[in-house]
């Protein structure tokens, strides 16, 4: 197993904040919008440096999406930010018509995705956002795995012409990808070479997958670990190449099983190379209050659970 280390722990949303601050400096068309969550979205630096390019929309997410669509018509690149639930489920139809179908250059940037927002509980813990956004034609869907990848993705999507959904989170987690990385939309990152099993992981679960890979490696099982940071367009080639080699796979994500990365992988396999797949994700249940760690444990979003599923799926080869 390739060695991954971290010196620092940071929240991915701060990677977004750093990225958009940099974009503020480099791209005068970038506009940041929020719906009464500027602090939670780490927009402070951007706002301080470019107050005239910050649009505070108040608690009115639907309007924020429409305003964003309208801003593109004046050549702007709006980054519409709020919590992931209010950035997707609250405004799906608005995104669908005014952004995706109209193919507007809006970047929907969503923090506090998944269980790991913690104590606020289920009303805020959206586990369906990736599923929703990946159903939209024209939409690019990205779920980065640490601070550096999030920052790089933030900068990359400003260059991409078209609607993007970028999802990140609240807890501090290890920073293990390079600070100077280029982010290539749609190109999976090969975390580790192996031939025993494929592990397709995204977001906060990538670090768990790495830890799982280490545990497995010690047991003589070398996992092929692939970080699917771009849920859509999906790097089908990377998925197929890996499973053709390993013959079985585990998906790992902080998302509902239905509609998540696992289902995207299942579709590719069913259509091209049927193989056993086990899921790590949330099984058709709402979340609840608790600390991020407690919730990841309780809902089985851990390295140990990935290891367990690897054993299970390898037995099915």
């Amino acid at each position, binding site marked *: 197993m390739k060695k991954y280390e971290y010196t620092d722990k940071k929240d991915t949303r701060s990677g977004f904040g750093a990225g958009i601050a940099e974009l503020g400096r480099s791209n005068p068309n970038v506009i940041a919008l929020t719906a009464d969550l500027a602090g939670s979205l780490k927009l402070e630096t951007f706002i301080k440096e470019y107050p005239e390019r910050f649009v505070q929309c108040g608690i009115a997410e639907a*309007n924020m999406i429409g*305003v964003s*669509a*309208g801003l593109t*018509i*004046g050549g702007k690149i709006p980054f519409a930010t709020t919590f992931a639930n209010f950035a997707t489920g609250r405004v799906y139809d608005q995104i669908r*018509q005014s952004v995706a179908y109209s*193919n507007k250059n809006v970047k929907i940037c969503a923090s506090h995705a998944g269980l790991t927002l913690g104590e606020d509980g289920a009303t805020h813990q959206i586990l369906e956002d990736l599923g929703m956004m990946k159903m939209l034609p024209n939409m690019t869907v990205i779920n980065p795995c640490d601070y550096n990848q999030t920052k790089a993705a933030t900068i990359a999507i400003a260059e991409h012409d078209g609607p993007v959904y970028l999802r990140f989170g609240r807890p501090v987690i290890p920073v293990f990808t390079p600070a100077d990385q280029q982010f290539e939309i749609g190109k999976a990152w090969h975390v580790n070479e192996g031939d025993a099993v494929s592990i397709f992981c995204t977001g906060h679960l990538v670090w768990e997958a790495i830890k799982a890979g280490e545990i497995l490696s010690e047991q003589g099982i070398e996992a092929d670990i692939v970080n699917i940071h771009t849920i859509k367009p999906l790097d089908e080639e990377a998925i197929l190449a890996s499973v053709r080699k390993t013959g079985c796979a585990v998906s790992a994500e902080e998302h509902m099983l239905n509609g998540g990365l696992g289902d995207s992988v299942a579709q590719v396999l069913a259509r091209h190379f049927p193989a056993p797949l086990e899921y790590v994700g949330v099984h058709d249940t709402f979340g609840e209050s608790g600390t991020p760690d407690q919730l990841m444990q309780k809902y089985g979003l851990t390295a140990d659970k990935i290891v367990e599923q690897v054993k299970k799926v390898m037995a099915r080869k």
Partner: protein
Amino acid sequence: MSTSGFHTRLKTDADVDIRATYMELQQLEGIATAVRRDILRMVAAVNSGHPGGSLGCTDFMVALYFDIMRRKLDGDGKPVFDMNGHDEDLFFLSNGHISPVFYSVLARAGYFPISELATFRKLDSRLQGHPATAEHIPGVRIASGSLGQGLSVACGAAYAKKLNGDDKHVYVLMGDGEQQEGQIWEAAQFAPNKKLGNLTAIIDLNHAQIDGTTQNVNDNRDLAAKYRAFGWFVDEMEGNDISDVIRTLRKSQEDPDVPTMILMHTEMGFGVEYMVGNYKWHGTAPNADQLQQALNGLPLSIGVTDY
């Protein structure tokens, strides 16, 4: 960015003498009649679409595109369309179901061939049932059809104009039933708070929606009082009187930082006797006999032809 070839427009705080456009008014009315014929023939051809609101908003749309808006034109007076619309007035149709009047006016203003109106709502057409940008039809800048979204989009476009130092104006048309959508009131709060004085919104106050009169379905009550409470400058006009539309739209708002909401009194189905004021014509196409009867009542002016 070329700034040549604008359709000029008088904009003044003083009351405008509408007689100055008296000759033009007749022409505008001729165009409006042609547009009404287009609408009826378009919806009849596919036995689908929304004639009622389209006919009621015809005079407004003709006045807007042929008199009010400062649009980019080439040397031959043909409109030039680019998505960004820098340095020209913009229009958004929020109540996308009245696409027939939008398409007809765009075609007759030269954005695309009038003959293309025959493809309305047909497979592979650029003239989708509800306006769409996916087919790259010139003149359309956003999809609509799902109600309640257009005012927000117009706010964004107006905001961008202010950021860009672009002094042109943004217009948006909405339905009165559409006022029941919550998103409208989010945008209603946004526009005055962001001082979008370069935004004029118009409500098609025809007191009709799908299931009946607006009063019976979900009474809008006093929309003027509502918008005033939200911080708008509120005006009214007779939407089926081209000269009143022009007179009203030419007036500048009182405060350059305050957006304008115009309650436009119209009749659903205006111009077709058997349709006037009847909500049943919201989304029903006339049959062949009804079409003929309607067209008979709408004779073309000399020099104007059907598509």
